[in-house]
């Protein structure tokens, strides 16, 4: 069994006894076998000395127990690392930033405290998953939707705190932005409620987010100044119907007006999450010679190929929600705009789906688009033990996409080996106002050279992105220092402010040391 | 300050001499100042319907109630405005009309505004 860094064996034994007093025997995990279950299943450091491992895990069931666990940790200066469902695979899972931390596993705090389908909100604990919340709503026939990310086993609370994202309307896709009110246990064990929750007997905790005075909620997202134990969310009322229409545009340079128009539709609230693609991506083998050209394939040659093959250069799946007649009006309007601005644009409408869906419709619908949690995104990744996400944020323009393709293709060309980016790669569109040029690097639990290569590529590509003014929105613990280093404006003034706050709120530096590159004073020297 | 004293002050400053600007005030510039800072409340053209009742621009509507037609409610149509009175109201506010700071209307701009709003008074004699 590992002992937390800087803690004597005697203190450790006493602390473990006190943890047991706080949460009961069944909530304290110390055997090697049990602690092994807190490893990051997709760790890029698997089995290497640097792998970030827990020393123990504590699973409280109430806020009071969390508070007591934090007090014990403070007493003995034991580093702790809270997880909600611990399922943010590709971004660190249930393993801590700092080896030897005690994981505070909140999975057993899994109450859905309230769902209101007239005022459209929910209040949940950290251990509640999207599956749980969805079932709660379905079992009661409530007329609200949740916005869910790809992995349905994730926690609405944890995902929001990691700045996670979903698939419906802009305002709901940003899960932290659509949160409203939280309860947190501070490093000294004190419990705060934010927003209206600070007012005893508050009637609008999950409805009005700011309360009175400064908003501190942001400090708890991707941060380490407390353990969030409750969180409210704004939900969408269930729309009447849903329909997609896929627009295809013929020429490579049509990407600029395509994205411009889609932005307009989206920012005006006429569509949900757009989904971009290129029909040419599947024809890379036929384009091998062109793709090898120094400086990339000329647009005219690609256009000629696309024309010969009767393929479009780019597609965008538009998603419409609302009353059927409104959807029809939206689609007609969108088609009119695209046709006017992009000669040769064509459309393929999906089926109009009215809710509730039939079983057949349920089986074929893209579930995340209609707020049904699932795990389908884990499909199609054979031959790997996991993946590691690189998630740079770029502007929402065609020019930026083409530039990002060039910049990242150069990295792969320089490094050799398979390129994850081609001239047909399109960004993820979860963010309301920005693109994420997402890439998943392979992870192996048996071949350490795969991980070494992934780490090198990751470090290099983070730097290259930063040189172009692009930072990442989220990263696994192994790379959080690198990502934060890119946010260096004015001699890292923002990070220094984060550190000032960290030291003030968590003077013993026990809480999630190193998360997002924010280390407590006594560990600041060890930053990667 | 008691209301009576405020009125007294208004009268006193209203009678004070007006030559404070270093460059010659311009009623053309003053029109620009008026359009930017005064017209949203004291303009001539009222909306068809107010957001919260009322039916006109707040300053113009208030003066219409106050003067009941004895003098025009629209400031730009007035021919009886004294320079000192304008200065005092701009710098002290009156009723719901707030104080205006020098980072908003500088002393020079205030003199331009005075020139503009007193142009009819001057012509009238």
């Amino acid at each position: 069994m590992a002992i937390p860094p800087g803690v004597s064996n005697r203190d450790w034994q006493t602390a473990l006894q006190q943890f047991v007093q706080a949460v009961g025997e069944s909530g304290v995990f110390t055997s090697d076998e049990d602690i092994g279950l807190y490893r990051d299943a997709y760790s890029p450091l698997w089995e290497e000395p640097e792998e970030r491992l827990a020393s123990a895990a504590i699973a409280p069931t109430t806020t009071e127990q969390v508070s007591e666990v934090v007090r014990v940790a403070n007493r003995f200066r034991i580093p702790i690392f809270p997880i909600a469902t611990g399922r943010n695979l590709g971004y660190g899972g249930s393993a801590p930033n700092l080896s030897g931390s005690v994981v505070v596993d909140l999975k057993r705090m899994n109450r859905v405290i309230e769902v209101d389908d007239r005022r459209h909100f929910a209040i949940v604990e950290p251990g509640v998953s999207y599956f749980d919340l969805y079932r709660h709503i379905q079992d009661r026939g409530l007329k609200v939707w949740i916005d869910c990310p790809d992995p349905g086993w994730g926690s609405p609370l944890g995902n929001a705190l990691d700045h996670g994202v979903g698939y419906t309307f802009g305002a709901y896709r940003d899960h932290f932005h659509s949160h409203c009110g939280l309860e947190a246990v501070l490093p000294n064990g004190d419990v705060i409620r934010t927003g209206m929750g600070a007012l005893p007997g508050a009637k609008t905790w999950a409805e009005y987010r700011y309360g009175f005075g400064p908003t501190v909620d942001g400090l708890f997202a991707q941060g380490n100044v407390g353990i969030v134990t409750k969180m409210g969310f704004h939900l969408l009322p269930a729309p009447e119907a849903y329909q997609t229409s896929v627009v295809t545009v013929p020429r490579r340079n049509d990407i600029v007006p395509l994205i411009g128009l889609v932005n307009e539709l989206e920012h005006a609230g006429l569509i949900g999450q757009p989904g971009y693609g290129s029909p040419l991506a599947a024809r890379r083998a036929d384009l091998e010679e062109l793709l090898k050209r120094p400086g990339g394939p000329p647009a005219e040659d690609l256009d000629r190929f696309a024309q010969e093959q009767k393929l479009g250069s780019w597609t965008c799946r538009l998603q419409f929600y609302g009353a059927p007649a409104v959807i029809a009006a939206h689609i007609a309007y969108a088609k009119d705009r695209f046709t006017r601005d992009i000669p040769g644009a064509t459309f393929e409408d999906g089926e109009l789906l009215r809710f509730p869906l039939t079983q057949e419709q349920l089986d074929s619908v893209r579930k995340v688009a209609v707020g049904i949690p699932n795990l389908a995104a884990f499909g199609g990744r054979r031959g790997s033990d996991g993946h590691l996400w690189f998630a740079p944020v770029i502007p929402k323009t065609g020019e930026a996409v083409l530039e990002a393709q060039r910049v990242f293709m150069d990295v792969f060309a320089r490094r050799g080996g398979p390129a994850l980016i081609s001239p047909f790669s399109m960004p993820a569109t979860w963010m309301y106002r920005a693109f994420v040029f997402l890439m998943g690097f392979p992870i192996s639990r048996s071949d350490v050279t795969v991980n070494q290569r992934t780490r090198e590529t990751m470090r290099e590509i983070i730097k290259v992105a930063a040189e172009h003014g692009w930072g990442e929105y989220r990263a696994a613990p192994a790379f959080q220092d690198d990502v934060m280093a890119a946010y260096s404006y004015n001699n890292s003034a923002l990070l220094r402010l984060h550190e000032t706050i960290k030291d003030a709120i968590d003077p013993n530096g026990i809480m999630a040391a190193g998360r997002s590159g924010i280390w407590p004073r006594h560990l600041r020297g060890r930053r990667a | 300050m008691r209301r009576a004293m405020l009125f007294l002050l208004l009268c006193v400053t209203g009678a004070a001499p007006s030559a404070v600007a270093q460059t010659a005030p311009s009623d053309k510039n003053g029109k620009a100042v008026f359009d930017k800072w005064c017209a949203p409340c004291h303009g001539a053209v009222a909306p068809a319907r107010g957001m919260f009742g009322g039916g006109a621009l707040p300053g113009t509507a208030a003066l219409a109630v106050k003067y009941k037609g004895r003098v025009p409610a629209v400031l730009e149509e007035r021919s009886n405005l004294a320079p000192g009175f304008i200065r005092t109201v701009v710098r002290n506010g009156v009723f719901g009309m707030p104080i205006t700071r020098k980072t908003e209307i500088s002393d020079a701009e205030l003199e331009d505004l005075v020139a503009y709003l007193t142009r009819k008074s001057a012509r009238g004699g």
Partner: protein
Amino acid sequence: MVLPPNVSEADFSAALGEFRSAVGADWVFSSDADVALYRDSYSIYWGEPEERVASAAVAPATVEEVQQVVRIANKYRIPLYPISTGRNLTYGGSAPTLRGSLVVDLKRMNRILAVDEKRHFALVEPGVSYFDLYNHIRERNLEVMLDVPDPGWGSPVGNSLDHGVGYTTAPFRDHFGSHCGMEVVTAEGEIIRTGTGAVPNSDNWQDFHYGAGPTIDGLFAQSNFGIVTKMGFWLMPMPEAYLTGTVTVPRYQDFDPLIHEVSYWEDLGLIGMPDYGSPIGGGFFAPPPAALAALMASGWPSIDALERFVGVEARPAWSVRLHFYGPEETVRANWQAAKRRFSGAIPGAAFQDGEFLRLPIPPEQEPTLPDKPRLGIPSLEVFAMVARNPSTANDPADGHADFFAMIPRKASAVWEAARVMFETYREMDTPAPYNPFSTPINYYSRCFIMAAVVPTWRDPARNSRSRELFARIMDRCAERGWGCYRTAPAFQDQLARTYSFNNNALLRFREKLKDSIDPNGILSPGRYGIWPASMRNTRA
């Protein structure tokens, strides 16, 4: 001259000299006449010893000058109070929370740094007003729509930092919620940029609001942790059209399904701020019609009595005006769909078509246009509500203090809030502008506001009474779990105390942050109830 607390006249004088070197002598205001221009025109302590007046004011023009001002203030421990346009009247205006503070007037920092009509954002400095930004957009025919609050001379930066609100669709109405990226001068004089602005040469500062790591932007709103010198905002693409329609429902108890149905439209982002009203109860803050007054003479009527009253009146009990933004086809389709849904949900619902306007509005049509803020056009028309009008012809107020009770979005809460307000006014022997048909405001999309507008005067005797009424409203609402989202410095300590969960744990947390970020306690001491360590025992 008022001196800052614990600062000697000699030190203050030396500091003023340094401020003059930093920003130019013209932009340091220290004469009594000039400093008086920073008084709160609507102060509820006007002319009393407690009135919060400045010691002087300094008006920097650049972020570097702001840094210098902050460094000088740290040297002499002079409390600073930054304002952007200082036009948040009823919430304190340009006067500081702590008497003797030096106002940092950012009005001269009035550059519009970017308006992007493709990615739909703006980046502005604090001295830019909604008027300025609107004119900039219109002069260039940029295809974006602003969301504006009532007073057009307010600052997008300052308004959002005060959690101010507007009128279009929900995401844009919340001005702090729709900000994206800020630049801040900290209490120690350091410049930070938040979100992706912390990546040097970032080209998406106004596109992604989080960056990596914790988000600290919220700390700078309604607070005193830094001076915000730039801020980005998401804008709405200019819609092609605007359509309004009014729904009326016949019975008193139809209010609940009415609200529920409106919330559906609101939370799907399909309408702007809904406008609730009652054809029976009279207008906003208007006295009740005679028959209703008679009904209320023997106390607050029961729901049955009100239902009977509505029957006798033979007019709809409630109305709501909806506002649709978008292409013509879709606003019309939405209004049609709304009619179908309201009819299905509420028997007897009736509909009246309102304006249909193509956007943008031609400039020559603007002046006579009603409801300008709903079309993103800044104005000052809201002041008509409190300016001299026929009902106050002989005794107009000098200002007002607003208490906005945040109540749940349901009929029972509205009815309870109207009654609580009514009874609280009655306790004070004050005419109560509330009746069982009073309607809420829906600025924040998820919450209703039951508003109390208390007059302020340049007369201590009358202000004393207004203060008592205001404090009583605050207490009565807090007892019921209703907070208020914003208030003037005169009430900030009292209001902060109503947010007392777990022995004021949130306030204590903020104080710890305050002490760490602003160790000398120079920035806006006391703002929103947050005092630096050295002054904490002086809290009101």
